[in-house]
């Protein structure tokens, strides 16, 4: 039985800190999450991207990997599961604490399918680590997410073998209460950590399969920075131009637990049947995977991929905006505002379909779809004659809008819209990731899962609209 990747997806947030941002001193550009994004929302975006064209009902488990989970106690994967519209009750597991969490989840998913305990497991990895302002790490860390569907039929990328080791070391870490990533002196961390362990694990897997560098079409691997990435590639004998997947340091940044899986998604966008790919990740040890691309790869290339996501971008005007969005700068609001109210967990539970899955109802008698879900039809007044209707994947057009200068947002003005969905139905919707100079009646939008606000440790997630990303 062939086991491997049956689909892949990714998500790169729209905004960039880069040469166009006032107060940004690095020549590199990196992807940064909007104020309403976190590892859960980005994971949901990547999972939805990955599941494009696949039945949600057949996914039996979701493994969610991140080192920046919004909840320390409470499963984060369940929120990703409902936002991605997986089957209710799907097994959900969080993988955390290591930059290898993403490949740990991948390994566990492969093993689950191999063991026959599931036919399809969805892996989602997402991270938005915050470096200390003006630290060296600030220019290398970015935000993003990736997702892989692991299964045993129509496998597009066969997982031939894998190899892992663990290695106890304190190189990068965050302890309870730390907001920023800490590091030890890099002479030590590189010599005794990354450079010592990582090449060995790759070599070991290659040796086991009697592979020389020329036998691999592409190598996709982690590095803490671009210089070490090149150093390891050279040491192992790979040609930088033809064989090594761009680690995206110049355009996206190191996205933590999602990093190598995002690189893999980028590599798969270019892959051809028969390609052999080596994937390797690092973090208190290392994981290496030997992959072989099959004919099925051609069938799943139709989605928005890393390349499209990287090209679709908007420079932050300045470093201050980043600081405010990230919670590093506690800037006074434009006007005194009432505090957000804490949502009731009982009400959140009742409204999972409405708020997290973004489902409405469609009247069975007159056929009109309506959001939020109704029990008495707004058109024909039929009572309780509805079927569930998914709005999250519907495109829509702006019917009217305003720019609310006093709205509760860290990205003012708050763009409030009324949107009409293709296929019928409408909603009041906040628009995110927008350009205030490019708003107009009739503009096409799509829905995106975001965090509205947090109160008393409860993250209140909801869907917003955004201009369709190219």
């Amino acid at each position: 039985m062939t086991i491997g990747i049956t689909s892949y997806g990714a998500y790169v947030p729209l905004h960039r800190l880069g040469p166009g941002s006032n107060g940004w001193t690095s020549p590199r550009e990196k992807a940064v999450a909007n104020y309403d994004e976190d590892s859960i929302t980005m994971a949901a975006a990547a999972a939805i991207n990955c599941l494009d064209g696949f039945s949600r009902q057949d996914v039996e488990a979701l493994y969610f990997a991140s080192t920046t989970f919004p909840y320390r106690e409470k499963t984060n994967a369940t929120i990703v599961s409902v936002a991605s519209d997986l089957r209710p009750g799907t097994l959900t597991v969080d993988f955390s604490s290591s930059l290898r969490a993403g490949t740990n989840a991948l390994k566990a998913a492969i093993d689950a399918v191999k063991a026959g305990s599931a036919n399809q497991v969805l892996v989602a990895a997402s991270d938005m680590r915050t470096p200390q302002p003006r630290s060296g790490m600030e220019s290398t860390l970015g935000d993003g997410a990736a997702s892989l569907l692991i299964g045993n039929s129509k496998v597009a990328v066969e997982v031939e073998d894998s190899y892992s080791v663990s290695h106890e070391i304190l190189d990068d870490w965050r302890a309870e209460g730390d907001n920023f990533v800490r590091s030890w002196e890099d002479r030590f961390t590189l010599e005794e950590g990354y450079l010592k362990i990582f090449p060995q694990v790759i070599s070991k897997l290659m040796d086991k399969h009697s592979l020389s560098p020329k036998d691999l079409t592409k190598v996709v691997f982690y590095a803490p920075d671009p210089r070490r990435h090149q150093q390891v590639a050279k040491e192992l004998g790979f040609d930088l131009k033809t064989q090594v997947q761009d680690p995206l340091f110049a355009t996206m940044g190191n996205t933590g637990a999602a990093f190598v899986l995002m690189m893999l998604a980028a590599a798969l966008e270019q892959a051809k049947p028969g390609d052999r790919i080596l994937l390797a990740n690092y973090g208190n040890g290392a994981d290496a995977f030997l992959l072989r691309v099959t004919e099925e790869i051609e069938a799943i290339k139709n989605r928005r991929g890393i390349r499209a996501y990287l090209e679709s971008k908007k420079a932050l005007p300045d470093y201050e905006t980043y600081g405010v969005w990230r919670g590093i700068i506690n800037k006074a609001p434009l006007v005194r505002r009432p505090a957000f109210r804490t949502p009731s967990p009982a009400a959140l539970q009742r409204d999972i379909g409405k708020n997290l899955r973004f489902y409405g109802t469609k009247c069975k008698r007159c056929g009109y779809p309506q959001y939020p879900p109704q029990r008495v039809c707004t058109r024909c007044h039929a009572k309780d004659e509805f079927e569930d209707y998914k709005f999250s994947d519907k495109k829509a057009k702006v019917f009217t809008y305003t720019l609310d200068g006093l709205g509760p947002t860290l990205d003012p003005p708050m763009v409030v819209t009324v949107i009409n969905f293709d296929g019928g139905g409408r909603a009041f919707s906040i628009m995110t990731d927008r350009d205030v100079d490019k708003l107009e009646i009739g503009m096409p939008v799509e829905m995106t899962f975001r965090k509205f606000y947090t109160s008393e440790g409860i993250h209140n997630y909801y869907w917003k609209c955004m201009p369709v990303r190219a």
Partner: protein
Amino acid sequence: MAEGIKDKAAIIGMGCVKFGENWEQSAADMIIDATYEAYEDAGIEPKDINAAWVGTSQGGVRGTQLAVPLKLEYIPISRLENACATATDAFRNACYAVAAGVYDIALAVGVEKIKDTGFSGLETSYARHTAQGTWLDPEVFVGMPAQFALAATRYFHRYGLSYDEGKRTLAKISMKSHHNGTLSPKAHLHREITLEQAINAPIIAWPLGLFDCCGVSDGASAAIVTRPDLAKKFRGDYITVKGLGITCGASQAELQDDYDFTHFEETVTAARLAYQEAGIKEPRKEIDLASVHDCFSITELINYEDLGFSPRGKAKEDVDAGTFTLEGDLPVNTDGGLKCFGHPVGASGLRMIYEIYKQLQGKAGPRQLKDPKIGLTHNLGGLPGRFTCAVTILGR
């Protein structure tokens, strides 16, 4: 067959405090001042009140908030909330009670103490009542200016008004209200403005700027009603109720993708009910003055069309012609409106009725119109598709 309210209830006394940032006055203080002015105006004693309704949108609870400060002892009092139509609805209940013959004299009071909240706008108050517990509802996350700005954007688009044309039209409405406010001693704002000031004011919710938004104020107002046959005992110039219409939206703007945002059906239907009761067929000709809900300038523009004062899409022409100024054919918001008299939500309906009452009695001072006979009030509370709208028709 229902007969309606026409000529079955009469106002014999009214009171209204000065609206504004009444830092030194509590809600109870304003209730006392407005109600005692009404007692005096009617020539009655507190003990003459048989029943009362108190309206407040963001304030206190229970009928006791009226009983306690006024020492109304052991009479029936109901507390009522219906957004910006709150006070008018309190008035409506009092009118129905005396018309039914259940009581002889009833008191209606509207009150709002907003400025203690510490916010320059409304504290998206309806959220409190409409909360489904998740706070994920347009009434929570869409502020009041934004809710009406959605209508402005669409109105400009539908009728082909450029941003500048639209802003200029709205500015004329605000300038008119500011002028009228200078003639109203009890108004919150007394300041003339120019068109350019209004057009160039800071944006609150694009395309609406500062001068497109009404005042946020404290205030209270009160009315004493009885049956017309009893009213004659108290005064010769009592004012009678000709029509009372209230309707509520059912989220049509949010649910129905053909709801246009360029008219508000709640106003159209409430006006229809009130006009039917009053026997009004041509509102533009038959109504002598109106106090309409101008929470934002765009609301007033749309009201002109929804109330039948201007044809659809043509309100701008009437604004340009000065139709709604004190000197025009149909003066609107003669006391400065919500814009300048101020908008203590639960008190505004009775403040409007107070202005019509005084105008019909010829007691409106420097802004007095020449011999008006029929007046209209209109409140629109909530957000598009979920409004409560109240329209009253009053006459001599």
